[in-house]
C-alpha cells in the first residue's frame, strides 16, 4: 500500500531529487576515471568514446543529462523554497523543473544523433 504522503506531487519532487543525486554520485567516479584516461591511456579513451557513439549509449547519456538538469532545477527550487518567502506555486515549479530538464536533455539527444 502506498502511504498517503507519497501521493503528493512534491513527494515525487523530493524522491526525484534524492534519486537523481544518488545516481549522479555513483556515476561521478566512473566519469572521472574515464577522463583521466586522457593522460594515462589516450588510446583507451578514444576506444571508449568510439563505443559511446552507439545509439544505446547516446540514450543512456540522455538519461544522465536529464538527471543532472533535473537535480539542478530541482535544487534551485528547493533552495528558493528554503531561503525565500513562501509561495503557493511549489508544484508548478517542481513540474517546470522536470520540463526544463527534458528540454535540455532532449536538445542534447537531438544534437548527439
Amino acid at each position, binding site marked *: 500500500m502506498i502511504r498517503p504522503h507519497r501521493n503528493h506531487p512534491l513527494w515525487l519532487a523530493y524522491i526525484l531529487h*534524492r534519486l537523481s*543525486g*544518488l545516481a*549522479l*554520485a555513483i556515476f*561521478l*567516479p566512473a*566519469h*572521472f*576515471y574515464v*577522463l*583521466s*584516461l*586522457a*593522460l*594515462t591511456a*589516450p588510446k583507451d*579513451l*578514444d576506444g571508449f*568514446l568510439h563505443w*559511446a*557513439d552507439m545509439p544505446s549509449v547516446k540514450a543512456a*547519456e540522455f538519461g544522465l*543529462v536529464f538527471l*543532472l*538538469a533535473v537535480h*539542478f532545477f530541482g*535544487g*534551485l527550487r528547493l*533552495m528558493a523554497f*528554503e*531561503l525565500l518567502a513562501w509561495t503557493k506555486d511549489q508544484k508548478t515549479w517542481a513540474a517546470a523543473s522536470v520540463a526544463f530538464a527534458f528540454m*535540455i536533455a532532449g*536538445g*542534447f539527444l537531438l*544534437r*548527439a544523433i
Partner: protein
Amino acid sequence: MLTLRLFMLQRLTALIMAPLVLGHLALMVYAIRGGLSTGAILARTQGSLPWALFYGTFVVAVSIHAAIGVRVIIGETLKTRGAVLNLLSLVFCGLLLFAGLRAVISVTMP
C-alpha cells in the same frame, strides 16, 4: 551543530555549482555534435587555465556536495550514525576529490 554546518555547506556548494552546472550542460549540448574524440576534448582543454579553474572548482564543490548528500541518505536509510558515518562520508569525499582533480589535471595539463 555538525548537521547544521553540513546543511549550510551543502547549500553553499550548490550555489557555487549552479553557474558551473549551467556551463557544463551548455558545453555538453554544444560539444556532442559530430561525436567526441580524445583530440577534440584535449584541443579545447589542454593548457587552458580557465578550464582548469572552472572544472577544478566544480570538482571541489561537487565532492563536498555529493559526500554530504550520500551521508544523509546513508544516515536515513541504513541508520548509520557517529564515527562510522563520518568516516564513510570523508572517504567518499576524498575519493571524489582525488579522482576528480586527477581527471581535471589529465585534460588540462599543457
